[in-house]
């Protein structure tokens, strides 16, 4: 018995679980408390609300209704329509953003004159809150006074003013363009950092071996950049599908719901129509779907990387 204990102790070499130390709690508390109060508690409350029929109203009774909200959600064509728009938006923005940001990052990685200035300017959209970005682009898209219409007119590309944000067909693409613009900085900067980590010797060696620019990119740069690409596209996707402020300011989900992203849909359910419980279940559903999509994506990317 003693021998057994001894071996066990020897096996579990870095024994930390030496009983509970109250002092540790004191050390962790300052970090843990805000997380519990500000993140975990609201999250749990939200999940709870999703199982109730909570509605806006003074002294409104709240009943636990089990999965009733989720059953309703499955049959809610409006919500799935909005979810489809959300996916088009999130995938569209993420892919375009990535393509544009990679190009920009490769450019900024070159030894160009005035590179420091270009790199700084790249950050500008990042410094603007989404609401300001939205307002600014609303002016750009303005049918009568917008700079976009007047520019296109001067170039004789259009003959009459286009109402970008009120057109059933153009509103979503127009909003996606703004989304790409607004999210460019963090994607570019992350990719640029990744590019700078690509060992210069490898590229040089490849050049000596006679590899073309494209071959160098494929064989040297891209494999080194892969983990960064996986991380930033996954993050971008999460940010984009949860986007709210930008689109709320640009179109409020219009025209006729053509740009009603899932988050806008949930917001309207809660704050416009007063169905708090249902809106909470929508939030939970969005989280679940995003998790599933990401799990598949990350698994594939990581597998390929091995």
């Amino acid at each position, binding site marked *: 018995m003693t021998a057994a204990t001894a071996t066990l102790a020897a096996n579990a070499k870095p024994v930390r679980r030496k009983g509970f130390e109250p002092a540790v709690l004191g050390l962790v508390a300052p970090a843990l408390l805000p997380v519990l109060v500000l993140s975990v508690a609201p999250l749990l409350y939200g999940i709870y609300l999703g199982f109730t029929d909570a509605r806006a109203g003074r002294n409104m009774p709240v009943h636990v209704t089990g999965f009733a909200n989720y059953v309703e959600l499955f049959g809610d064509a409006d919500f799935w329509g909005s979810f489809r728009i959300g996916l088009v938006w999130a995938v569209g923005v993420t892919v375009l953003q990535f393509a544009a940001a990679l190009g920009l990052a490769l450019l900024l990685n070159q030894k160009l004159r005035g590179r420091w200035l270009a790199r700084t300017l790249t950050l500008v959209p990042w410094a603007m809150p989404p609401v300001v970005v939205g307002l600014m682009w609303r002016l750009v898209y303005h049918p009568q006074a917008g700079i976009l219409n007047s520019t296109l007119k001067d170039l004789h590309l259009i003959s009459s003013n286009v109402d970008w944000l009120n057109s059933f067909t153009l509103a979503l693409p127009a909003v996606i363009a703004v989304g790409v613009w607004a999210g460019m900085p963090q994607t570019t900067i992350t990719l640029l950092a990744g590019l700078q980590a690509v060992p210069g010797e490898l590229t040089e060696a490849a050049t000596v071996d006679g590899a073309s620019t494209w071959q160098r990119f494929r064989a040297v740069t891209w494999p080194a950049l892969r983990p960064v690409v996986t991380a930033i596209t996954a993050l971008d996707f999460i940010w984009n599908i949860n986007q709210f402020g930008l689109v709320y300011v640009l179109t409020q989900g219009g025209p*006729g719901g053509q740009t009603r992203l899932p988050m806008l849909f949930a917001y309207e359910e809660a704050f416009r129509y007063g169905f708090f419980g249902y809106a909470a279940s929508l939030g939970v559903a969005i989280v679940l779907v995003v998790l599933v999509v990401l799990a598949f994506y990350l698994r594939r990317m990581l597998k390929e990387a091995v």
Partner: protein
Amino acid sequence: MQRRTLLAVVPAALVAAGTAGCSSGSSDGPVTLRFLSLAWQKESIAANKKLVAEWNKKNPKIQVKYVQGSWDNVHDQLVTAFEGGDAPDVIHDESPDIAGFAAQNYLQDLTDLLPSALKNDISAQSWDTVKFAGGGIYGVPFLQESQIFVANRKLLQQAKVRIPTVDAPWTWDEYAEVCRKLTVKGKQYGVAWPLSAPVNKVLNLSLNFDGTFFGTSGGKTTVHVGDNEKQVLRRIHDQLWVDHSADPATVGMKGADPLPAFFAGKYAMVPAGVYFRQQVVQGAPKGFDWVTIPPLKGTSQHQGATSQTLSIPADGKNQKQAMQFISFLLNGPNQATLALGDWLVPTSKEAAKDPRLTTTKDDWNVATASQQNLVVAPYLKVDGFDEWKTKVATPAMQQYFNNKISLDALATKLVKDGNEVLKRYQK
């Protein structure tokens, strides 16, 4: 990161709604009331602030603090304020919005608080626009909007059409005929219908032909689209796509968007609420001669009315004092001042007689007379109307006016999808 910032909007709205909450428990001690005002035109803000200052001078024990709100987000602001238990003492809003809040028990039934002088001075039709949830009164109605047209007088005279008056209005048929006459292919249209938010406009005008869109039987409200309801829809659609007397390019526009082209003579008329005259006066080039076309006549000149309102929250601590302030703000002379500031029609009978509101200057006489045509809008009494409007009616009507679906397809959507939505509210 940056995406998080909008989550801060909700608490921010709360803070905005509740900056000064000093109120004492006793009813005689000095109190401070918060008055959430949505006035937005310059003259209107000035008029409101002036009246508040006048009140504060006369009533040192009931001080009123003017809080500026905005029509754009008043609903969201009030939802959070009510839920947070910190609503302003006097709330400026409009009847479609307070219908929902009344159903949610957030607002005080004012029936027993109303002084009789105020009650008698406001027309019965206006009181109908604030009676919800079993007949209680959930706000004091004070400004109303009727639908008129603003026309370019020179173009009307050139086309030699009869200019209608309050006593001899146009019928819808005559109006359609006039629009055809005013249309010059490729150069000029008879009318420009900005229809980005078509629902209230269509529903209010449809009462010209007794189109009510909603019917209640056995305590259940359902959507109904018959011949009466189709009249105004079809007539506007015909102007756009059959007569070509209305410019299809304006269908996606908001109310004031066609103004520059109207001033330039491209459109002979624009439909609008009476307040629109202010924008015409302010924006018109020198020498531009315009005229207000009184409400059109179908089988009647009736139009659906809603009102701007002042309400008191159910949890308000100083309801009596709040009502005293409301009675002051909405008495005859003061309502006239507010109506002038907003270019709208007052609900007060006394105010309607104010010479400033009956003068022919800026067609105030036509605007004020149009109040006679207002009847309570049937949709005001429909629980879930807002969701029906946003999810079903707005997109469907936009498609119809863009000539993408037929009138029958529109009617089916409004009824079938609409009843699905209304069901949620009748549990």
